[in-house]
Structures are given as C-alpha cells and as structure tokens.
C-alpha cells in the first residue's frame, strides 16, 4: 500500500506491506534508523516518536494509521551537527552507555520538557516509566533531565 506521511517536516512516500508498524516503515522504508527496534510490544519505549505531536511507541502504530499525518522522530532534534539541548545533556551527564534506549529516552524527555519545563521528581519518573534502560540504573538519566531543564531554560 502507498504510505505517505509528513516525516520531520518533509512529505515522504513508500510502498509498504499494509501490516507493518510505523517503526518498520521508518527504519526499513524511509531510512530513519534512529528510532530503535527492541521489544516490538510497547514495553521498552526505544521507538518513541511523535504522531501528530503526541508521544507514541512507533512499534504499536500500524504504519497506515500514520499515513497522511505528521510524524516527528529523534532525527528531527539535531540541527546539522548541533545537538539538541536534551541530547547534549545526555552526553554531558553520562546518561548513555550502550545507547540503545537513548533515542527513545531523548524523545520522551524532550516531550516532557516541552509540556512541563520544570517537572517534579515524581513527574519525571512517571513520564519516563515507559522507557527501559538496562545499563545506567537511571540515575544518570535523571541527572540529564535536570541538566536539560537548565539548558532549555537558559536557551529561553
């Protein structure tokens, strides 16, 4: 079936099998491997993207459901070789180990800070409850959220 969606600001098309997930269409058909394929059952959050501005697991969206709509992926965050403040914060806080969960967490943290610039500790934990990391133990990730919060505020 013809899949056509506005992905990171550009209308993209692909001929896909109608049963694939949005994650599969992004990675395998549109050449956007930033969203990671880990659990394929919505458990890990590694494939977090925005669909019409709403944070979702791309693996749980039938690609055709996103056809005609707006998809924003982790690839949209950096501008040329300049990282997004949330990405910078992850690097600086040492919140990245194997890196597999990182794109999903970056998207989830960005979504949180866009909606709530100064979230409470429980709000951060709840907002990131759908993203699993098996390396860091989360402490560094929580540090990165605070660092990103400061950076975004000073960036205005």
């Amino acid at each position: 079936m013809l899949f056509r969606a506005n992905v990171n600001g550009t209308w993209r098309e692909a001929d896909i099998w109608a049963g694939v997930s949005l994650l599969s269409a992004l990675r395998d058909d549109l050449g956007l491997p930033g969203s990671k394929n880990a659990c394929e059952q919505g458990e890990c959050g590694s494939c977090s993207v925005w669909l019409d501005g709403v944070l979702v697991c791309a693996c749980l969206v039938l690609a055709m459901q996103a056809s005609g709509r707006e998809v924003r992926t982790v690839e949209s965050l950096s501008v040329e070789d300049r990282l997004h403040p949330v990405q910078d914060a992850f690097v600086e806080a040492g919140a990245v180990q194997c890196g597999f969960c990182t794109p999903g967490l970056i998207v989830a943290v960005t979504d949180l800070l866009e909606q709530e610039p100064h979230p409470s500790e429980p709000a951060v934990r709840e907002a990131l409850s759908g993203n699993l990391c098996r390396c860091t133990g989360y402490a560094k990730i929580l540090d990165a959220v605070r660092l990103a919060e400061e950076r975004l505020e000073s960036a205005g």
Partner: protein
Amino acid sequence: MTISADLAMDVLQPSTLDEALEMRRDLPDAVVICGGTDLMVAMNFGRLRPAAMMDISRVDEMKQWRQEDGSIFLGAGVTYSRIMRELGTFASLAQASRTVGSPQIRNRGTVGGNLGTSSPAGDALPVLAAYEAEIVLVSGRGERALPWDRFLVGPKRNALEPDELILGARWDISRGPESFSKIGTRNAMVIAVANLCLVVDEPARSVRVALGSVGPTIIRAREAEAAATEVFPWDDPSAPIAEAATEGFAQLVARAARPIDDVRGSQAYRSHACRVLARRALSWALEEHRMDGGS
C-alpha cells in the same frame, strides 16, 4: 521479525461512522484497530495475519465523550491520556487510566480496546462494572446497549456481533467516594495481578465492588457489597466501622474472586491481594465520606 511481504492485506480507513458501519457489514472479518496497543503486538510477532484491518482511529464520532441527561457517554476511541486530563471527576476511571501501561501506551490505548479485547486484566473494566455501565454497540441495523456483564461473557470473549462496532460505554453519574487500586510488580507497564474498584453511591446508599484479573472475567463481589452497604455509616459519617466488619467485608471480597495460578501470581497471592485491596478501598471510602460529611 519476518514479514511475508507477498501476503495480501488491506487496510480500510473510514472517516465517518456511517462509512465504518458499511465496511463492517461488507467485510465483517476485517480486524478493527484503533490505538493498536494490543493488536500491533500480535501483528509484530506474526500471531495475527488478517486479510484486512479496519482503522477506526479517524472516526470522530467515536472519539467523543458527553454528558447526557444524568449520565455520561464515553466514546470507545477516547484514549486513557484524555480520560486522565478531561474526566478527572470520575476518580476511579482516571486512576485506572493512569495505571495503564506508560505515557506512550496511554496516548494510544482506548477504553474501546479494553472492551474489544475483553481480557479480565483490562484496567478500565472493573471500573465500568462498578459504575454499572452499559456498553453501547452500533451496526447498520441501529444501536443497542448491553449491561457490562452481558457484554463481557468470558475470558477474551464478548457479545459483539460481526457487523457491530463498540461505540462506547454509558453510565449514570452518581456521587460519593470511589477508588481504583491495582497490584503489580511495578507502578508502570504492568498487567494487573489483581485490581479492584470500589464505588460508594451516596444517593442510592449502596456500595459496589468489582474485581479484575482474578477470574475468567470481571467479578462483582455481591455479598461483600451487601455487607458493606449494611455497615456503611450513611447517617453518621464520623462513626467508625467495627474492625470485625471491615475484615468480614475484605474476606467476602477475597471469597468472590476466582483466581488461577499463572505467571503473574499464584491463586493464594491473588486472594490475599483482593483482601488487602478491599480493606484499603473501604478505609479510603470511609475517610472521604467522613471528610465530606456524607454530603
């Protein structure tokens, strides 16, 4: 994951309810998908390979909720995130919604999905049972409403006809303390080991208790309800309930459960969990009743 790309599959995408019903009549085997949080797991793992799917996520009629004369209608396509934001006055429904999956899942998952899947672990289902909700079904032949327990007929089984769609749920708006609680191994991304919804209907002077994940379908603890209704301090909100009455209520709730041993928990643990949840829910309700002065 391997996908046989040569496998023919069609996705129908109605944009109105009329269109959806026409497609449903003509292609009753098309699997209806909305949020996709259940179905896409089955698709991704190759357990589901339908000839067609019908995506109803663009049907606006299903994404609305509205207050009707003394009752509320909740469209099947309203997501758990929206319930948390827009329907906080229904405390136990909002609490149950908040325990569903993760933010990403709640942004997609719908009450219609819980109803369609009809798993005894569906978090919204005990709430609908405690609200005495009716499930509104629609087809080209018209609308019909079934009491929740005539819709949910068994584990993953419901009374939906092949040409019907789940339009939503409707229940009478009441007044009084209510709560939803859930036992699982984490606070997020967890399928319930046991869950419980307790609703005190102040105007009707009745207490209703529903259990999930501890039987083949949702269970109302009728004997426990009668016991709680009898001892509840309707006229004197500050009057305490005897410990024996609380424990008796909790035991009746646990006795109503029909749990099994499975990967999420043992039968014995689940019965114990029901007892604990029942005690807590009753104590919260009494506290709220006392604070509100029974008004």
